[in-house]
């Protein structure tokens, strides 16, 4: 038990926890947006950053990218690529929120549900925490990675 706790407290363990959390988070976040594409498009439009012609496209593609990355993180396959993508998305989201906060727009975040609390600096903080977790995952994640697991059998052959 203590061994497991100790394992959890190691950098790799923390990274694993963060990875699973972020993965689950993004999967969950993506699922609503996939189903309500029109609302999500409206949300994107409400940020007033994306050009009109790209709004719908982005509204269609972005949730799926989030879903794919989230799944990759949960499963532990190509973790660094997935977490890099998610980190990038988080950066973009953070910047968008900051810009809109600076504009004073009272839009909702649009992360999970269409109708949410308006953005605030707490939202930014939350996103930054998530970004830090993503960085941790990028640096330290080593446990339960699917690609390593898939290739583990080949270690016997001397790879």
């Amino acid at each position, binding site marked *: 038990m203590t061994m497991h706790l100790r394992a959890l407290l190691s950098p790799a363990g923390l990274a694993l926890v963060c990875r699973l959390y972020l993965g689950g988070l993004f999967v969950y976040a993506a699922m609503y947006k996939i189903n309500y594409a029109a609302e999500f498009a409206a949300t*994107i439009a409400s940020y007033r950053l994306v050009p009109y012609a790209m709004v719908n496209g982005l509204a269609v593609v972005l949730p799926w990218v989030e879903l794919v990355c989230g799944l990759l993180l949960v499963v532990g396959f190509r973790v660094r690529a997935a977490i890099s993508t998610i980190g990038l998305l988080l950066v973009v989201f953070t910047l968008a929120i900051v810009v809109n906060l600076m504009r004073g727009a009272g839009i909702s975040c649009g992360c999970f549900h269409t109708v949410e609390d308006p953005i605030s600096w707490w939202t930014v903080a939350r996103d930054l925490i998530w970004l830090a977790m993503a960085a941790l995952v990028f640096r330290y994640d080593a446990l339960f990675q699917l690609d390593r697991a898939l290739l583990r059998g080949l270690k016997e052959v001397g790879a």
Partner: protein
Amino acid sequence: MTDEKRAARTATETCQDDLARALAGAERTNALLDRQVFRLRTLYEVTSELAGLDDSRAICEAFLLLVMGPLGLVSGFVLHTDRDAHPDEVDMTQRGLEEAESRRLRDGVATLFDKLFHPGSDRAQRPILLSGAHLGRGSELPPSIRTLAAVPIGRADHLLVGFGPNLAGEEPGPDELDLIQSLVVNLRTSLATARAAETVARLNADLARKNESLNRSLDRVLAAQAELDRRAFQLRSLYEVASDLSGLTLPGDVADVFLLDLLGVVSAADGYLAVCGADPGATLAAARGANADAAVAALVAPEAREAVLAAHVSLKDRLPHAMQAVLVTEPGPLSHLPRPAEAALFFAVDRDCRGVVGLGPRLAGGPYGDDASFLGSLATSFLSALARARQYETITRLNRELTERNAELTRTIADLTSARQEIDLLTAAKERILSLVRGELLQAGKVRLVDFVLILAFGTALGLLYNLASPSGIPLVPPALLAPAPAAVSAPEAATLLAGGGLIIDARPAEFHQAERIPGSINMPSAIFDFVYGMHLSTRDPELPVIVYGRTVSSRHDLEAAQKLERLGHVSVRVLEDGLDGWRAAGMPVETGP
């Protein structure tokens, strides 16, 4: 006719001449003639008597007798010695001498002879005749001697004749001396003749002896020649047999050829040969003569092999060693043999291989035992050839096995080579796979561009597919962009139109309208479009100019609203160029606040 005989005849003729002279002077006295006749008769008798004798001793004795009788002499001796032929031998014949006298005489021979004969005297010389009483004064001669004749016969062959007085004690007269001289000459001749005859006889005997020894030598030479011929024959036979056997490689051929040659060489009527190896069924047999085939069949049977080996055993200590052959002629061991034979050669090639050559009766030559060594040599030749043939067999068999083994090995090597190539290929493949895997493992920790590309691609693909398939899918390209855009109107124109009674619609969401708006604009967010339309516009004239504004970077509320209005029948719907910003920039009034 020999010289001696001729000489005798010459002497006879000489005497006869005397006789003729005597006869011519016969007129002188009859008594003289008679005497002479007498003497002559004596001479003749002596001569003829002596002529028939061969032995010198007999001659001397006869001479003494014949001379002393007619002359009436009391004593006489003849000393004959041939110092060349018989140096120590003295032939002394005497009559009428005393023992001591004769002994002294004999002892003094050498001295006498030295005195009387000088070296180099030979028969050609006339005898020296001495007479007188003084002759007896010497120590050697007997005192009674009155006449002495020294007669050389040869170089060292001397004759000494001495006479004593006659019965009357008188010395011999001249006639008598003459007679004696002639007689002595005769004696000499006879002795010489006898000597010659002796020599001839001796030479004859020598010759006969030499002849005999030569004959013996000749016999020996002939015998040696015969032996050499025999040896030559044997050697030639050996050579021929050896050369016949030399080229053969099969043991069967060796046996057949050897048996044929052997029977020819020893002139045997028939014979057989059996070689028994370790395997009971592999007896090698050959036979010649009558019933040869039956003999071969009998010899090949296992019982024959037992019989042969039993015969070998019965030899006991004469059992042949390896590469050795023994000739046996005794009936004992021969009785064990499977077939009858007069003599047999028991041989052994090695510990396991033994055999026998059975020989039938000889048609020529002596018993088999005489040729034992010759047969042994032939057998040795045969054994070498047989051993060689067996080795050749073994070599051929081994060669064949080797060739088969070789073929097997070649196939195995080919298999192994192809297997190794396969293994090499598989190893290379494995290495490749492992390197790929290692690469993958290394890659597992890295971020690759392709990952991003794949994530984006997947996401895009899934999104588009879902969007296409889903009932709540949205158009990728907003329809507002595709539909024909309503006419745009600039801010001053819009102001003019408004002043002319036109409507101005703010299509933005309510909070934006509340924050900032064109004075007099009606807020018609898309969410409550129908509601507001029903409130404000449904009752209005469709031809009333309507100006719509309200776009942001991300939205074209004005276009959407304008298109909706157009669809609802309004004909004069226009979009404010540049929106609120344009209006403001044109200096038109803007309302702020709630």
